[in-house]
């Protein structure tokens, strides 16, 4: 399916979704409440079957945090970007997609560790790289400071 | 056939006579024992060092490398240098280890291999003790080493060591059976357990040639099981470095580590010695048996006299080194087995084959089908 058809198909399944076209991929933006259901829809609809989550990125935007999911279908060879923005930065919460794509387990832990987005219902929400006990703050946040950071 | 093999007995007896003539019998005995002890210590150390060097050269040969080549000509002093280094290294004290057992373990391992070497005939008359149950004694003593390994693993207070020691225990207990059974096959053929008589019985041809197919099967099983018993690759699970870092001797350093290291090589030497003695005729030169003598007539006699000029000690060493080379070859070409595969190989394949082989050998001896 090309991007046009993909857009039509997704809108026919759920007309309330917000789809915009990027230079490479279609971008599907959802609210945290709808994230899990939309993800299930993308994975389980047989015409879409986005079964391969090839990248999961956490971004710190100025007013909120955002998670970008790059999805691909191994069956139909089409790709899409799913985005979910948290309500605020201080208490960034998103539902997990670990039960849908197992690779999200580690990637979400990484995002929690570095960007500070907590994923609810995640089986093992701990820091993955940094020290669980004594590391303060989330390094990839834009306001993170550290005595050792070099700023130019 | 008049064989003229160099005999050490007269040399030994002259020293014995000299001592007993000049000293009271008690002191003569003490001095004799000390002399033999010192001789064995020297031999032990030299063989150990040589084997380490040989292994490095053989391994380098198999791996497209040169091997040690800096210390002395062809690097022959490399192992001496390494040994001095090991002597000077700090002995690390493990605070939470069981100190007594931790210190005891390397001695048990090295004493076990020491005791085994005493019963091996190196040449005609060059034999410290000639037990009438020689084969049995060597078997029993060489398997004592596992106690040291188990102690080392247990007392180190290290999980890798413990796993390594447990593996080693399971392995040695299992393969001891195969080693024993394959030797029993030859004992049936030779009709004696005394090592000197076993060698003597091979005067007209080594057992591997005269013993028909069962002897060859027994030899193969002995080499496999012997390699396993010495914890060498591909059966080196006890110290599998990619899994257990260094297995049972992970926590050992300096001279205590050197003891384990040396004992490993000496165990290899002992296994190879037994293989050479029992299957390949020990110090006995390669003689053509009566069957071939009938066939070739005079030529075979000339051949037999000719080979007797090579001293028996060289025959013995040559055969032993050949078997050792085989074992090194295994180690440097095969991947390692897994513990359950190792036990499966023993209990499901080697042991049944071995039992069948013994029956076959008994049948052959009974019917007189051997040469």
């Amino acid at each position, binding site marked *: 399916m090309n991007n046009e058809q993909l857009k039509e198909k997704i809108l026919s399944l759920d007309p309330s979704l917000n789809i915009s076209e990027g*230079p490479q991929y279609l971008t599907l933006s959802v609210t945290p409440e709808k994230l899990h259901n939309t993800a299930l829809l993308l994975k389980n609809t047989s015409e879409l079957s986005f079964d391969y989550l090839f990248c999961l990125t956490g971004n710190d935007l100025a007013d909120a945090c955002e998670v970008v999911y790059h999805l691909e279908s191994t069956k139909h060879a089409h790709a899409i*970007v799913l985005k979910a923005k948290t309500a605020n930065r201080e208490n960034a919460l998103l539902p997990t997609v670990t039960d849908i794509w197992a*690779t999200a387990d580690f990637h979400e832990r990484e995002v929690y560790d570095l960007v500070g987005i907590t994923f609810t219902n995640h089986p093992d929400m701990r820091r993955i790289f940094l020290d669980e006990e004594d590391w303060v703050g989330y390094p990839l946040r834009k306001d993170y400071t550290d005595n050792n950071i070099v700023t130019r | 056939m008049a064989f003229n093999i160099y005999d050490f007995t007269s040399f030994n007896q002259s020293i014995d006579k000299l001592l007993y003539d000049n000293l009271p019998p008690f002191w003569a005995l003490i001095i004799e024992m000390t002399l033999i002890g010192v001789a064995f210590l020297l031999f032990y150390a030299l063989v150990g060092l040589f084997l380490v060097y040989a292994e490095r050269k053989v391994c380098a040969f198999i791996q497209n490398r040169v091997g040690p080549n800096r210390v002395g000509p062809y690097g022959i002093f490399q192992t001496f240098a390494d040994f001095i280094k090991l002597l000077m290294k700090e002995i690390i004290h493990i605070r939470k280890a069981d100190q007594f057992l931790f210190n005891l373990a390397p001695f048990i391992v090295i004493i076990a291999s020491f005791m085994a070497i005493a019963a091996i005939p190196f040449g005609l008359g060059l034999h410290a003790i000639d037990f009438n149950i020689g084969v049995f004694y060597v078997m029993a003593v060489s398997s004592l080493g596992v106690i040291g390994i188990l102690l080392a693993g247990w007392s180190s207070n290290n999980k890798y060591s413990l796993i390594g020691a447990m593996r080693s225990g399971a392995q040695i207990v299992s393969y001891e059976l195969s080693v024993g059974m394959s030797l029993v096959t030859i004992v049936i053929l030779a009709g004696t357990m005394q090592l000197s008589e076993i060698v003597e019985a091979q005067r007209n041809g080594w057992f591997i040639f005269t013993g028909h197919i069962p002897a060859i099967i027994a030899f193969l099983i002995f080499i496999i099981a012997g390699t396993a018993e010495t914890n060498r690759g*591909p059966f080196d699970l006890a110290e599998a470095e990619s899994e257990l870092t260094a297995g049972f001797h992970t926590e050992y350093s300096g001279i205590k580590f050197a003891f384990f290291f040396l004992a490993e090589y000496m165990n290899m030497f002992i296994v190879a010695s037994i293989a050479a003695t029992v299957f390949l005729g020990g110090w006995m030169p390669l003689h053509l048996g009566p069957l071939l003598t009938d066939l070739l007539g005079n030529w075979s006699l000339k051949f037999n006299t000719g080979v007797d000029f090579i001293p028996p000690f060289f025959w013995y060493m040559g055969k032993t080194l050949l078997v050792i080379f085989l074992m090194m070859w295994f180690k440097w070409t095969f*991947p390692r087995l*897994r513990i*359950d595969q190792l036990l499966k190989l023993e209990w499901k394949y080697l042991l049944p084959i071995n039992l069948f082989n013994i029956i076959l050998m008994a049948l052959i001896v009974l019917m007189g089908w051997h040469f």
Partner: protein
Amino acid sequence: MEEFITNSKGKQEEEYIVNMGPQHPSTHGVLRLKISLKGETVERIEPHCGYIHRGIEKMCERLTYQQIIHLTDRMDYLSAHINNEAVCLLVEDALQIEVPERVKYIRTILDELTRLASHQLWWCAFGMDLGALTTYFYGLRDREHILDIFEETTGARLLQSFNVPGGFMNDIHPNFIKRVKDFIVYFRKKLPEYDELLTGNVIMKERTNDIGILSLEDAISYGVTGPSGRGSGFACDVRKHHPYSAYDKVEFREVLYTKGDSFHRYKARVEEMWESMKIIEQLIDNIPEGDYAVKMKPIIKLPEGEYYQRVEAARGEFGVYVLSTGEKYPYRIKFRSPNFSNLSAINKIAAGFKIADLVAIGGSLDLVIPDIDR
């Protein structure tokens, strides 16, 4: 020594916890695997990463795109050139620059040489994991030839950083073509030795057949890519499905195996070496004449927006995600490293097998630790 944990029935049950790493010969780096054992059987594996975490993504937020290239080397150091290329392709795509054909060809050749060198080193290490120490020297012997070629052309043996946005830092060395051709002739003779020494060995087959099975569904779900994923039948070769550089001009087979055990992951890698040689042979004689780089502005600013570039690194799919605000620094850059996803499946693959199998499985996944931690 034993840690006691309470099982679901509330009964005290002994679990033998062993830490494999961070200093351990078979993790090939500073990875720590916390393993619960029951006898020799692995019950559960909990990977602990971060021992070599350098915060590359954070550093990149203060670096220009040319500088970022030099950090991508330090992730998967064995596919350094491929990682470099990913950033270059992303920048070129974003600025809509068409690089000369010559650059595309040479990039593809260097990619495949990198892949060959990486797979050779993997083969060495895999043999060592299984306890066959001799493999190490056979692999390194052949890898040396590739590193010499790299050294001559790029000036570095391991971390080349030869790519710049728009092409290369320099043209290839005059000897390059001849030496690559010689190497292919040489390695076509040497690669069968690998099979003779290890592939056909009985013990090797016993140790890897039916060990560590990863089903196709799990491979996709865990995002296990590269030869590890293709051993499970996951058609994930970026070179085939999203061709870049000169991959659309060459004929090659996407190596796919179906069983997903250690042996098929092994076979997939060995087969890939043959395919890599095929690709190089098709390109090496046809490198077009022309410039080795497009003239670029000294300061590169990507237009506002999001960019994503996928390439096939030696261990799987490598991705770069850039969120640009139009500055000379990226606002956010994320590297999708293949090993991180491959590692996440290790509990699924290895639980229930023996410790020795875990080592074999780790070897067959071919993990490079700095790539996991970034």
